[in-house]
């Protein structure tokens, strides 16, 4: 719907974004302390969080599925560095995104959408680790913008490296 005046300022259509669904897509929690009967005790865990993202277009117009993938590894800091637990979580959401210019769509899907999903991911990780008998793990906030830039830089680097050397 356009205004009768047809003012140019109004010409840029309103960005529309809506979360249609959000869900745990895949999850794996391996509690090695319990499985191997390790002594829990007062071990110092060394926790690593890996994040990766994926976005794809759905068959329905303007709909995208965005998946945040978290891999949390906890290792014994001292001694033999055996794994204490290993958590993998694919948390996804279906977004309705409209009127985002083509060149901005990619960053939008990989920065804005994960930002919306993250609090839920954080809660799940916290719950699951607690349920596994560990102190609940509250993952630090992820700066998805910085992550995106890093990824871009990495790709550019990779591309350069892949260029055949004359």
């Amino acid at each position, binding site marked *: 719907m356009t205004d009768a005046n047809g003012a140019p300022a109004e010409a840029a259509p309103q960005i529309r974004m809506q979360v249609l669904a959000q869900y745990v897509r895949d999850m*794996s929690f*391996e509690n090695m302390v319990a499985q191997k009967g390790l002594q829990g005790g007062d071990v110092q865990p060394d926790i690593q969080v890996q994040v990766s993202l994926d976005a794809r277009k759905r068959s329905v117009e303007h709909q995208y599925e965005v998946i945040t*993938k978290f891999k949390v590894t906890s290792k014994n800091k001292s001694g033999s560095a055996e794994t204490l637990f*290993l958590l*993998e979580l*694919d948390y996804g959401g279906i977004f309705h995104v409209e009127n985002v210019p083509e060149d901005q769509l990619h960053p939008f899907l990989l920065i804005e959408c994960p930002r919306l999903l993250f609090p839920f991911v954080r809660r799940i990780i916290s719950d699951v680790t607690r349920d596994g008998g560990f102190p609940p793990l509250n993952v630090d906030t992820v700066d998805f913008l910085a992550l995106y830039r890093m990824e871009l830089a990495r790709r550019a680097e990779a591309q350069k490296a892949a260029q055949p050397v004359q």
Partner: protein
Amino acid sequence: MLGLGTLARKIFGTPNDRKVKSVRSLVARINDLEPEFQALSDEGIKQKTAEFQRRVQEGGESLDDLLPEAFANCREGARRALGLRAFDVQLMGGIFLHQGNIAEMKTGEGKTLVATFPAYLNALAGKGVHVVTVNDYLAKRDAEWMGKVYAQLGLATGVVYPFQSDEEKKAAYAADITYATNNELGFDYLRDNMKASKEEMRQRGHFFAIVDEVDSILIDEARTPLIISGPSQDRSDLYTKVDKLIPELVEEHYKLDEKTRNVTFTEEGNEFLEKRLLETGLLPEGQSLYDPESTTIVHHVNQGLRAHKLFNRDQQYIVRDDEIMLIDEFTGRMMRGRRLSDGLHQAIEAKEGVSIQPENVTLASVTFQNYFRLYEKLGGMTGTAATEAEEFMEIYGLGVVEVPTNRPVARADEHDAVYRTAREKHDGIVASIKDAHERGQPILVGTTSIDKSEALSDLLKAAGIPHNVLNARQHEQEAQIVADAGKLGAVTIATNMAGRGTDIQLGGNVEMKVMQALAADPTAHPDEVRARIEAEHAEEKERVKEAGGLFVLGTERHESRRIDNQLRGRSGRQGDPGRSAFFLSLEDDLMRIFGSDRLDKVLSTLGMKEGEAIVHPWVNKSLEKAQAKVEARNFDIRKQLLKFDDVMNDQRKAIFSQRLEIMETEDLSEIAQDMRYQVIDDLIDQHMPPRSYADQWDIEGMHRAVQDKLGLDAPLAKWAQEEGVDLDVVRERLCEASDRQMTEKAEAFGPETMRSIEKQILLQTIDAKWREHLLTLEHLRSVVGFRGYAQRDPLSEYKTEAFALFESMLNSLRQDVTQKLAQVRPLSEEEQQAMMRQFLDQQRAAAAAEAPVAPAPQPAAAAPQPTPELVGAEAGEPDPAAWGNVARNDPCPCGSGLKYKHCHGRLD
């Protein structure tokens, strides 16, 4: 003075005489048959062989019944082929061999020909006869020489030697009579049992073996196991570093026990070493030698000490071409390619500063004792066996029979001359050699080690006596030196190797002389040269005989009377005159370590003066007692070794016969099924206690295990909730489900492929498990001796533990096989293509890597054989590193069908 025993022997004859007498009638019958066989045509002789074969193989006639005719035929065959007519004593030897005895025949009595009789007779049964010699040269020579006889008789001869192709070997073993060395036979046996199919095996059973120089093979070598091994990781720099410390040790740091050939650190030594190891950084700060982490370094240090204190250059080994070559303590020969185990060889390599070869891991091993006990029947020949008769009987069930010589021995064996010091002894030896040399009598001087032979050589040089030295260093000229040893006035110093299997002929070797003369003057007519030389030779031989024949002079008694007798036996062959004497001193190793105190007293009673030798039967007796003591000790060691090895041998036999059965069986699905059922039983036992209710079951664990081991996603939880489900029902359902799964697989693969997959998986798993098991047993054996400190018998401890290990090996074998079979599945089209691509990439990479060094190897040979139908561990280990990030819940890229986290991604 006649003792009771002597008197009885005079009247009844020795047991040996009786044995000899018992076969005289057989010999007489063979002699009676001789004219009949002489009348046959060449063709007739061959037909006789065919007739005999029919009678044995179809008519069921026993070989014993056939003996007179077969021997008569063989004698005639040999006469026509070689122009040699066997003497009666040779027939006798043949009969003893056929009866499964050791025939003791003096050197030069024609043992090679003797072997043909029992070989021929037993070959008639069509199961193959092995004639075993000590080296490849003799095997080839005898096979060629005696092959003429067998060919005359219509039988095929084969010879086995190293580096033959599989086809050649197979053909040689398939021949009626096969000549081979003991090493090659043993190794082929081991190699056969690492083969993947029956068709590839070379040997065809172990029916009858005739072992030449049987004492050397079954006694001297019995302690050496044959080992097929592969290299393991390299620790060479540690050997070198440790080696630098050893020379710093002084005498109170270690204790050397020459008697048991052992060396250990003393308390001071340990302290000193720990200090030095810490200083050099070999031992990390704050760690002591007694910590469990220090096991490796302690091992290296111990081996370093042994390398320095127990192994002397030119005595136990020599250095040649950047390699340490061990010397056989009995024959003085170099043992090329033989290495000490357990890092000792590396330690010696470090000591001598040659390049250090990596340590080896055993893949398969067998001792000669056990290999030769595989034969249904065994016969042996040697010049000297009587002293070890007890051992032959006890271990191999072989009797020893002394076969009378064709002509009586005309050698005079003198009593030992005993001096007080080594210096006096050497003076005596030189004087004696000088005397004999001047009279023109050829002399063979026997020494016990290379450096002793060289020391003596220096003494003779100083005395101006020309001589030859024969030891491991002169390997190449050996034949020449032996050929010359019988010449007029020749002096030859030899280690006790002195050409076993070759003759020292009085007056020298005619063939050798002819060859030399022809080489010097190629224009001369061979026949003329030969006639001239033969005439010269006859004259020289006469003169040597007049001088008293060959004089054998021993400079020391060996640890075994048998070796002394061998040395003596070089003289007085075939009725030639000869003389032998041993020169000893109280400083000789044997006397020093094993001699009794009585001897000292005896000598002082007899009143010994400087430079004077004592020759008295008492001394001889005392010495022989000392030797018998050593012999008994060595026998005990061998017996002990055998007892330990017997444990492994029984297991080896079980595994090898299983293997053979698997190779022979067409369809293994039943065996696989049995294994599967057994695994199901085991799983149920583990997770579901007997007579328990469903709620006591470890359903989750069981489910995981079933999925892991059987590849089945069984609805166990559902079953557990059903009414009236007990263990038997679960077992039945699981068996059914697994059967169904395998049937489906078999259909998907096609029955042929499935069978070959089963076979491959079974064999590969058995081999891998057996290899592991061998290693474990080796380790067990190295520590089980300590149980003695706890008042337990190490042997029986070893037996029980080895048996438990064996059982657990079979257990895990079943599990592995079942698991692998459960995980095998046919590949989809795309997967096959992907696999091919990957395979080609690998090849390209391999070829690129090799290119600068050598031309790219043939791709088919270089890369592991692709088996496109197979996935899983068999299809070449997949490389998890190449898969990148795989989600924990994703199916494992290896294609097992399991989740990654349950398969290659499993955290352990």
